[in-house]
């Protein structure tokens, strides 16, 4: 028993060292964001000789961070709301209507998940360009198209656990189809809605290629701003690193707040 304890102790130390190694890229990014470019070349590992906020101020300004944060938040929130609402409705309809057609439709959605984005991006941007929809609204609509598959799949699975008697009781009380869905079924699907929200927030918030094809610079999101900012400051690591640090702050805050839901949500989505 004593040997067992000692082994666990050693394992704990090993794990903590590994965790520190895992975090080291963030450490290196943050400490060097406080240095001058010259100091980075002289001593990249140590703490800054004097901490200055200058890099952050300039990076914040050049990134047009507040605008980008606003665009990212707006696009992500609306897209997720739209995906959740319409996919839950579709998942509900497909699971309650047991027909061959329902199965075929579900299969089409699932199959669509296998199509890599590159296979459709060229004609997609050309199609949306031809009707002047290469903008934020068009992008949100595209996220609905790409995001609904997984969401419908998850909702459809969750519906199996909700008995039909729930629907019937609501219908007897005089509710129509939509009311039944909105007041009775949708609240019961909340755990899956959280999972769908989390899986999509990670994807949409960080997406680069699609917004880069669709958005104009006035609508740029954080990844888009980061890309042009970084191109401007190649070899000026002090500014580039300060910009990177600022860019990941919202994500870290989100992770700290919703840590448990995030890990649970991802494992929920991964296993299905």
């Amino acid at each position, binding site marked *: 028993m004593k040997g067992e304890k000692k082994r*666990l102790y050693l*394992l*704990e130390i*090993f*794990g*903590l060292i*590994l*965790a520190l190694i*895992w*975090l080291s*890229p*963030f450490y*290196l*990014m943050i400490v060097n964001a406080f240095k001058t470019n010259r100091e980075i070349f002289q*001593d*990249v590992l140590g703490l800054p000789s004097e901490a200055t906020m200058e890099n952050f101020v300039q990076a914040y300004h050049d990134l047009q961070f507040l605008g980008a944060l606003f665009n990212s938040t707006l696009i992500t929130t609306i897209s997720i709301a739209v995906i959740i609402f*319409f*996919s839950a*409705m*579709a998942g*509900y*309809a497909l699971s309650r*209507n047991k027909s061959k057609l329902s199965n075929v*439709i579900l299969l089409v*959605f699932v199959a*669509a998940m*296998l199509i*890599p984005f*590159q*296979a*459709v*991006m*060229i*004609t*997609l941007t*050309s*199609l949306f360009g031809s009707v002047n929809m290469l903008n934020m609204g068009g992008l949100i*609509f595209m996220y*609905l*198209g*790409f995001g*609904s598959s997984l969401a419908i799949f998850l909702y459809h699975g969750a519906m199996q656990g909700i008995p039909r008697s729930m629907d019937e009781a609501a219908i007897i009380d005089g509710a129509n*189809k939509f009311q039944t*869905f909105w007041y009775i079924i949708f609240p019961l699907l909340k755990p899956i809605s959280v999972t769908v929200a989390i899986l999509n927030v*990670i994807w949409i*918030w*960080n997406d*680069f290629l699609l917004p880069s094809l669709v958005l104009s610079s006035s609508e740029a999101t954080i*990844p888009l701003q980061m890309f042009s900012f970084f191109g401007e400051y190649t070899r000026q*690591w002090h500014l*580039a690193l300060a910009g*990177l640090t600022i860019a990941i702050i919202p*994500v870290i805050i989100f*992770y700290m707040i919703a840590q448990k839901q*995030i*890990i649970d949500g*991802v*494992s929920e989505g*991964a*296993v299905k």
Partner: protein
Amino acid sequence: MRNRDFAFWMFLAPVLFALSLVVIIPLLSGVFYSFTDWNGLGFSTFVGLDHYLRLLNDGRFLSSLWFTIQFAFVTVIVLNLLGLGLALLVTRKLKSSNFMRTVFFMPNLIGGLILGFIWQFIFISVFSDLGQLLGVEALNGWLSTTTTGFWGLVILTSWQLAGYIMIIYIAYLQNIPNELIEASKMDGANAFQRFKSVTFPLVAPAFTVSMFLTLSTSFKIYDQNLSLTNGGPFNSTEMVAMNIVYTAFSSNQMAYGQAKAIIFFIFVAIIAVSQVYYNKKREVEM
């Protein structure tokens, strides 16, 4: 009855509309355009298989395809070993298990583009500094050769995705009944034997899931490629996804880029289908 049908279609209409305009129509018209001289706006002639034949002699495309295959092969192995290792570590009764899970998963939340920039700094600046400090020649000039670019991408991707694969393995590890572990202990199995005969067979389905995920993800990687190496030096670390974007949008060869995209799609689909097939076959055996 009619009323029921109407509600059914109304509930499905928004997602069907979005899926058609965003995925189905672009895919089908993409297949069509790949046989024409389409320039993004219109086309004048059918060129048949010209674009597809041209692919076979496109050295840059073929080398990007080969690079991607090698990358996917190595990444799948590294990610699964690492993911399973981390999962085994954090499911032991350690005081800091939750902290470790949080840390190992963290890179997943940050976009590949940003992570690529962070690692660009590490490979270029930190590695050369460390190299001088430790007198290790091999740490100099990272990302400036094809080999270091390749391993740079492998390291970045493994670091980013290992936490995700870890989560999948944890989910399966937690489903192993405790009695089985206890029973094997009673029978005098050591840790290795227990892993080999009890744990490993029971997490095998997790391997199928995560192999599918890692394979298809590493095939489609773009952001990390763009921000870490940007394909350099001399396009030698350019992967297929990046090659397609380059062909279509930087050199404005829409139809040719689309033909590449169709081949890419077929590649990814074959991987997916053979995975499913493999999966099913094993299920029968079990």
